[in-house]
């Protein structure tokens, strides 16, 4: 089926299978930051934003994304570098496979989390798994990012 997708602010026409999921479509279009992990909507490495909401792109039919704004890490390069800097500064980035998905979720925190308490942040990020670490470093990085970049702004 032919479909027009708005990806990172650019309209792109492409052909997809009727039951294709957004993860496969995005990767086929060269957006390789979007990773395939569990492929069942559990691990969060495939997280992208659709109409400003984080979604698991492995469990989201591409046909649903028609007429909506899709955002991947390629579309927020400046912010991603800043967030990534805070993560790596804490030594939290090991294999790096979960980082693009995690950064998309962190990027959306200011629009979705009212108070930046540990509990609220953890509840929001619970859908992003990391198999290398114990999340401590990520939490330090996220909190510093929110305090120094988001609150200051």
């Amino acid at each position: 089926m032919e479909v027009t997708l708005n990806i990172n602010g650019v309209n792109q026409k492409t052909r997809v299978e009727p039951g294709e999921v957004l993860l496969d479509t995005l990767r086929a279009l060269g957006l390789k930051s979007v990773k395939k992990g569990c492929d069942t909507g559990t691990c969060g490495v495939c997280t992208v934003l659709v109409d400003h909401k984080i979604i698991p792109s492995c469990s989201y039919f591409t046909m649903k994304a028609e007429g909506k704004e899709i955002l991947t890490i390629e579309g927020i390069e400046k912010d991603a570098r800043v967030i990534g800097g805070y993560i790596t500064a804490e030594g939290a980035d090991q294999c790096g496979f979960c980082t693009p998905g995690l950064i998309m979720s962190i990027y959306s925190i200011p629009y979705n989390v009212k108070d930046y308490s540990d509990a609220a942040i953890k509840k929001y990020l619970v859908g992003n798994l990391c198999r290398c670490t114990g999340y401590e470093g990520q939490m330090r990085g996220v909190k510093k990012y929110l305090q120094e970049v988001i609150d200051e702004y």
Partner: protein
Amino acid sequence: MRLLNYEKPTSLSEAYELYNATKDSVVIAGGAYARLQERTISLGIDLEKLKLDTIDITIDQVSIGSMVTLRVLETHKQLNQEMNAVFKKATQQIGGVQLRNIATIGGSICGRYPFSDIIPPLLAMDAQLYFFDSGIISLEEYLEEPFERDILTKIVINKNQLCSFQCFKKTYKEFSVLNVALNRKGDYWKLVVGARPGRAMVARETSKYLKNNDSIDEIYEILRNEIPLGSNFRGGKKFRQILMKELFGKAYQEVVKYGSNT
């Protein structure tokens, strides 16, 4: 799931006709679980253009469109303020935020998932389901009946109910090993136990006893004999029996607390 075709009808009657004209078709709400099935389907009918994603709150009722996502149920301020946050409590541990942004209440009901966290409180609160063709049917009846090709449009619940939801999970966002919903409306009590691991059951006998009795131990004896529990990879029968007592006790305390607040 392999789909051979994908349609987004713009009216309910069109969706209903498509669904019944193509025997080998499925209705797609959020699509989160649809794709996990390993079969080939000739047509997927996506309901997203039917404007079924609103919540209307009147003086005495709450009406939730079938396409409302679990994340909206979790974060809806007025809904949770007026219903003792039962929707927040019953949705906030279903997967991550990502999943809850796509999974819908309609999909959760029509999937009839035995592990569902949202079905027990809806059952306990006597939710009414509005179907396009067959009209209004209670959730309790719907879960007993065989599958019919109809389209769920909204879920309606009476307000002024005191419903507590309790669950036990091994990790924050895993499926419940057991869950319990206890509801009270005046003298009327209704207790539901889900993820037994079989599908959610209404504890009718126990609910009757709740009206005149406040000895948790005595009520639990009736509950233990009424609701069969089993074992699966999430937990054994004995473990579930211990959980049922604990969760029921917590739910009871919470409902009593809600009652003294009003």
